[in-house]
């Protein structure tokens, strides 16, 4: 095993609570009707290309990407389009979606290989790989849902030296990446090879936190067993510390390079890809299978059966909660994603999407004293900030709507990891104010640049 590395600046260590770590992935049975949102990535929602009454096959394209930062949407099931309407997403806002009445039997769109066989021969070349990734609508599945093909396109004059696979899974509770690493090891490693070929480099490094020792051992064993096939792939254990899986943090931890403020990771010669996305890239390139399903962790302190489900997109989240033992009585908070960066859920009937890494049921804040008090200037937020910012200051100036000052104090460098708010003894919603300030400051900068 390589020596353990970590990022130095800031960070916190919340309780890990990985209850579902030992639960094998189960295939989730599909309901009669599924609701496929058209906006499943960070950018613009896709344009719908099917009509009411059309019959769609599993894996068929139903929405085409609109604009540069956008991703295709495919049908996760075989059936007829019941309607194209709006559906409440997890925030309670109405978003456009395709409602599909499902047929019992999957009929796959032509060209998709459905067998489980491991295909080790990468036939496509670099450019074709990226095109395939784009065609199959693959996005960053850690939660940010940034289209992966955009990430893999190395700009002119830059060179990718390393492909870093972000397997840190530093979010507490979530285990979907960990289970995938254990159960689809070979496919995952092939995915790494494909990404390496896609961006044109010989080095692939998988960064994993040391709380996932079985995965580290298994990966190392597998690489050792097939040294030819997985040449150039390394496993790098990382210290269990949040936010180890932050893109900038994992680059710093593994290569020692810092992404310059306001620049993209490619400046350091690194392309960072998430585990689930890597697996999806394998399926897309080798089997022509678009992104229509993912592993979703359903967990929480008082839930009966914390589980990992392989779930097609468009399945309402409340069905997943039901399958994990139902909604316990003492739930106050449902979260889409992990506890540090996930989003509060207004309605549990929201459809699962490409970015739904977990559904987390929180109990009554574990009886913590959450009363807000005055800032006592303890500076813990500044100490915890992995970006070297001063959250207490940003909070203050954002509250005063002083957006010159927020910009001067590098508010745009905030990665919104939440370490500051986690550590604040005065229970101040620091990140709320910082996000507000960041949105406003970003808008001001954008307006200025357009002039």
């Amino acid at each position, binding site marked *: 095993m390589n020596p353990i590395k970590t990022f130095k600046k800031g960070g916190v260590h919340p309780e890990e609570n990985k209850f579902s770590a030992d639960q094998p992935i189960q295939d989730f049975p599909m309901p009669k009707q599924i609701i496929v949102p058209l906006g499943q990535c960070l950018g613009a929602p896709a344009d719908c290309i099917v009509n009411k009454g059309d019959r769609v096959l599993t894996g068929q394209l139903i929405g085409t990407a609109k604009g540069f930062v956008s991703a295709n949407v495919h049908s996760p099931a075989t059936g007829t389009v019941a309607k194209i309407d709006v559906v409440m997403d997890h925030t309670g806002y109405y978003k456009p979606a395709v409602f599909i009445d499902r047929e019992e039997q999957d009929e796959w769109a032509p060209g998709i290989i459905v067998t489980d066989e491991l295909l080790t021969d990468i036939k496509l070349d670099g450019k074709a790989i990226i095109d395939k990734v784009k065609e199959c609508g693959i996005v960053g599945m850690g939660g940010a849902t940034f289209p992966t093909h955009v990430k893999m396109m190395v700009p002119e004059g830059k060179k990718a030296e390393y492909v870093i696979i972000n397997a840190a899974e530093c979010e507490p509770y979530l285990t979907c990446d960990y289970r995938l690493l254990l159960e689809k090891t070979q496919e995952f490693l092939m995915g790494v090879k494909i990404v390496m070929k896609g961006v044109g480099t010989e080095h692939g490094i998988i960064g994993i936190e040391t709380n996932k020792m079985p995965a580290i051992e298994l990966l190392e064993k597998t690489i050792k067993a097939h040294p030819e096939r997985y040449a150039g792939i390394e496993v790098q254990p990382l210290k269990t510390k949040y936010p180890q899986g932050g893109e*900038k943090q994992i680059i710093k931890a593994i290569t020692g390079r810092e992404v310059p403020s306001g620049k993209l990771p490619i400046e350091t010669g690194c392309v960072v890809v998430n585990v689930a996305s890597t697996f999806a890239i394998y399926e897309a390139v080798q089997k022509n299978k678009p992104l229509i399903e993912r592993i979703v962790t359903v967990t929480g302190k008082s839930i009966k059966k914390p589980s990992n489900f392989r779930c097609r997109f468009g399945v309402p989240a409340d069905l997943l909660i039901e399958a994990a033992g139902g909604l316990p009585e003492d739930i106050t*908070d449902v979260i889409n994603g992990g506890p*540090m960066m996930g989003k509060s859920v207004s309605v549990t009937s929201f459809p699962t999407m490409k970015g739904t890494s977990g559904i987390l049921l929180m109990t009554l804040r574990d009886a913590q004293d959450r009363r807000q008090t005055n800032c006592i200037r303890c*500076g813990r937020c500044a100490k915890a900030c992995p970006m070297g910012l*001063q959250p207490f200051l940003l909070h203050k100036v954002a509250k005063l709507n002083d957006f010159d000052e927020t910009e001067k104090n590098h508010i745009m460098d905030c990665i919104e990891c939440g370490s500051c*708010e986690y*550590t604040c*003894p005065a*229970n101040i919603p620091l990140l709320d104010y910082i996000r507000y300030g960041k949105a406003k400051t970003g808008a001001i900068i954008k307006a200025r640049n357009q002039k």
Partner: protein
Amino acid sequence: MNNYTISGSPHVHSTENTRKIMYRVILALIPALLVALYYFGWYALRLTLVTVITCMLTEWLIQMFLIKGPITINDGSAALTGLLLAFNVPANLPVWMAIVGSVVAIGIGKMAFGGLGKNPFNPALVGRVFMLVSFPTAMTTWPQVQPIFSKGFFADAVTGPTPLGILKESGAETLSQLDNMQFLDMVLGNRGGAFGEICAIALLLGAIYLICRKVIDIATPLSILLTVFVFTGIFYLIDPIHYIAPWYHIVYGGLILGAFFMATDMVTTPMTTKGKILFGFGVGAITVVIRLWGAYPEGVSFAILIMNAFTPLINKAFKPQVFGTVKPSKQ
């Protein structure tokens, strides 16, 4: 339908809160309080109760009738101010003076600025310095230690000099000749002085607890003690007759109490480690200057108050390094 909570991430928080921090500091002061009770008996108990209760009552009255805001006397900060104030004055101080000092500490030192977290100066020290300049005699008449087992709990106080007082008035030669001014006595608290500052061992015990629980950062006290040690050490090396040894300077007076409990107050001291070191250096240097050449025998409280005023500037000067802003000098 379930009434879910909507909040911005993160959805988990550390179990730390302001109250816990304050109560931990109070807990850390308990050993020194016990030593004070042992040496000063009834006076120490009376003084502590008066200052703590007055501080809490003042805060309550102000929040209730002047600010008309939320009542936060339970957060332990007012009690802590009262306790620290008691630690900084002679045990036999008249009750009314203690009350005046407490009201000033909370009323002017803290609430006038908006309450917890907004005061630029350490409230307990504001109270102490106010009393020191208002009632100079009472504030510098120090009771001698007399263990309660020898004289009883309610024994009358006998006043006597403090080591630093002797040093100021009679010089280093006299001090070194006194036989009850041995280093061990100093450390154990068998000496004159403000009631909380006498026993270095008890204070260090509390300080170690605070450092282990990560309530305080070791940078500030270390920087203060090192600065005092080096400065007084230089003078001791130059002229060992007129200047006492640096280790005496460390244990005499309120340096340990100030360094570990007052100069580490989060509200009034810098946030970054570099800032803390500079702050500590300032406190140490000013303390030595006052002790060696000033009018007062002791200068820790003045030094901390002066450096408190510099805290915003230090905070501005020593900002943490923002990720990704290092200039690429190596390439």
